[in-house]
């Protein structure tokens, strides 16, 4: 057994002074791949993510336990000048800072980009906010729900002309912004390694959403096409392509983006004649007869139990899958085989918490989950002592004054 190679971000120190999910998710990924992540939180209450979702017996929620994985908690009150001084000392020893306050907040505390950049010219700063650091809406409060609306996802989710619904999850835009932020940080680290120069990354929740809207923008600009809600149908270019109910009251997704995949579906249905050129073999014909084609597929789906139907599709190579609930996912062989669910013992709550495993999966340097979300301030003393070289007395004074 050879020892695992060093993780790619070993030796990188990240300060995560952000809240809830967006920028913190970036810090979580950096931590999974070896960075030392210091979660800087307010001494009273800490990150609001500790209260977002379902509480554990310790009080901190499951979202916190999962997304603060591998982080160390350091409490500092940034509303106090003494707190700002400690933060600056940390920043001078950090490679990356992740923040997602409303633009101007860090500046108000005296730790804006200019100050920090002067203090540590190679520092990289990720700034995630609802609307970005500039533009007319920069001061508006932003949450993922709002970003889904502004960025175009919410308008597109729901039955045609019906009430627009949540696009599956209220936190989608947060995660996506964390991913874009992480790409920005990794690019900036590479640039810093080449030039010694730091920089900041400015990204907005609504932008992450809008960037993932395929040809919505060019189609409107060129042809004036305004895409509307499609209900259970994936897009206007292919058919059949959507969600269908099965005999046992469950749902499947079927996708036939090409003539070839439709042919395979007809084989699964035992009706190969449907894929002939005189019937529905061409995409064009299927689109012209969308209602008929969908009805044929819906009738077939309604005649079989979900598992029977999916077996037929898989055997014929037709793209299909179950609309999984989380209960289905826990029973799914693929999730288990790829270890997408990992159980982590949390000693101090005496419970095992199951969380999504590290993504992406790297063959030589796979990421890791050493610990789940820390207790508030669990690592304040060790960090101030070991990293900043503070004495017991200094730490004691800061504690008494409730700065940390």
């Amino acid at each position: 057994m050879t020892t695992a190679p060093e993780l790619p971000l070993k030796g990188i120190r990240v300060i995560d002074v952000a809240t809830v999910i967006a920028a913190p998710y970036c810090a979580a990924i950096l931590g999974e791949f070896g960075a030392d992540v210091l979660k800087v939180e307010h001494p009273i209450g800490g990150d609001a993510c500790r209260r977002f979702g379902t509480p554990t017996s310790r009080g901190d929620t499951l979202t916190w336990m999962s997304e603060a994985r591998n982080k160390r908690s350091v409490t500092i009150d940034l509303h106090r000048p003494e707190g700002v001084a400690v933060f600056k000392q940390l920043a001078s020893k950090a490679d990356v800072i992740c923040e997602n306050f409303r633009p101007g907040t860090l500046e108000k505390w005296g730790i804006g980009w200019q100050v920090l950049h002067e203090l540590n010219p190679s520092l990289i700063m990720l700034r995630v906010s609802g609307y970005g650091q500039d533009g007319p809406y920069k001061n508006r409060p932003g949450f993922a729900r709002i970003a889904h609306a502004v960025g175009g996802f919410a308008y597109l989710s729901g039955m045609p002309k019906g009430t627009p619904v949540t696009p599956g999850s209220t936190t989608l835009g947060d995660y996506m912004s964390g991913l874009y932020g992480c790409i920005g940080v990794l690019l900036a680290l590479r640039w810093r390694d080449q030039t010694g120069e730091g920089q900041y990354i400015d990204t907005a929740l609504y932008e992450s959403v809008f960037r993932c809207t395929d040809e919505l923008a060019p189609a409107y600009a060129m042809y004036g096409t305004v895409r509307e809600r499609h209900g259970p149908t994936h897009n206007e270019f292919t058919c059949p392509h959507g969600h269908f109910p099965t005999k046992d009251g469950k749902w499947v997704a079927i996708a036939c983006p090409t003539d070839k995949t439709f042919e395979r579906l007809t084989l699964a249905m035992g009706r190969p004649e449907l894929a002939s050129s005189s019937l529905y073999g061409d995409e064009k014909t299927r689109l012209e007869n969308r209602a008929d084609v969908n009805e044929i597929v819906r009738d077939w789906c309604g005649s079989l139990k979900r598992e029977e139907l999916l077996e037929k599709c898989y055997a014929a190579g037709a793209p299909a899958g179950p609309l999984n609930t989380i209960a289905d996912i826990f029973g799914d062989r693929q999730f288990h085989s790829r270890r997408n669910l990992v159980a982590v013992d949390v000693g101090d709550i005496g419970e095992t918490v199951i969380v999504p495993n590290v993504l992406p999966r790297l063959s030589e340097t796979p990421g890791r989950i050493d610990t789940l979300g820390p207790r508030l301030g669990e690592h304040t003393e060790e960090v101030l002592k070991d990293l900043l070289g503070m004495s017991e007395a200094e730490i004691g004074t800061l504690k008494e004054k409730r700065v940390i």
Partner: protein
Amino acid sequence: MTNDTDDSAKKAKRKPTEGANAPPVEEGAAAPPPESPPEPKTEASERPAGEALPLDGARVIDVGTFLAGPYAATILGEYGAEVLKVEHPIAGDPMRRFGTPTKRHDATLAWLSEARNKKSVTIDLRQTGGVELFIKLAAKSDVLVENFRPGTMEAWGLGWDVLREANPGLVMLRVTGYGQTGPYRSRSGFSHIAHAMGGLSYLAGFPGETPVVPATTPLGDYISGLYGAIGVMLALRHKEKTGRGQIIDIGIYEAVFRQLDEIAASYGLFGKVREREGWGSFVAVPHGHFRTKDDKWVAIACTTDKMFERLSEAMERPELASHTLFGEQRKRLAARDEVNKIVIDWVLSLTRKEVMDRCLTNQVPIGKMNSIADIFADEHFRARGNLAEVSEDGLGTVVVPGVVPTLSATPGRIKNLGPALGNATYEVMRELLGLTADEISRLRQSRII
């Protein structure tokens, strides 16, 4: 170089759509975009933006199709990598035919936008001569992106062992519906299936009713592309330290599943199965979509008690936020129908503009539910350069989403949109692989390239 110069260079790259041949829009179209506030001055960039980028000198081969792997290559290209799109000589990437066609026979709008900055090189990997060329190309590249079904590259003689022998430092990104391992690895997968498999589709729609597609876009492809780009950047860092390449293996379904906050943990610990939430939320009230008097929609998100207090002020009913009424989230959740009805009625009594104004004055989190027409009329999208205009021969101006994220010293860029099929084949064969003109024409005759 002064900062002012830097800012103007950056602005030029993030050109708003002013003056585009955009069709008329529903509202506010006549209003010119207001002056955006000056960008914060930064000493971060002493050099003009765009002169050098973090991935300059990196070469990426993108042999994927559609979007899932290729979007990772798109991002790498925006930040300076040279991206060679390797395609079949006859048909090319099927993405060229996916979506709305243009006057260019080999390019839909989706292709134009997402194959941005790439160069097209045609090689037939089903011919031995093509495989040999591909191995030579891989030997001169840093990153290889593919998304064939597991085993396909191996069947062509292009498995990891072969490629690694040709180039020990190669980073290989493999994106498929289900990943390279596990019982479902051979199944065909598209993002639509991955949304279902990963648990997202089940959650979109009204409780007990038909699950709808989340947002109609190939979200899973984009998200797995984001994880792919992260994996490549991490692997490049490892390669620079050790000289060793590696494989990044992503299943689209798992990228989707990773977005679902505490759904796994709360099922694991409490057996809670999350259901569709319709237009609202199970964890906060009011938190959802509301119709206005002029038949438009807004999203309002009162995640905390503070936000609800502000909303009740905007509604001129501050008593609603008292302890005896609905001041606490717990109480609002218990009386969700009652609270929602108050907000529904209030929003319905006002036009969208009136609701927006009142909420924003009181710092309530609110947003318009934008259609693409609304987005084109939106001053903030313009100010941030989210709609990039690119001139394309024969097509005029094409408007595509700008680069995300924005880096202060090294902002990404869009040099060109999706290339014509094979536009760089000759250049790459000649200059990169050092073939003679004769050799190239023989390869063309045998339809290997």
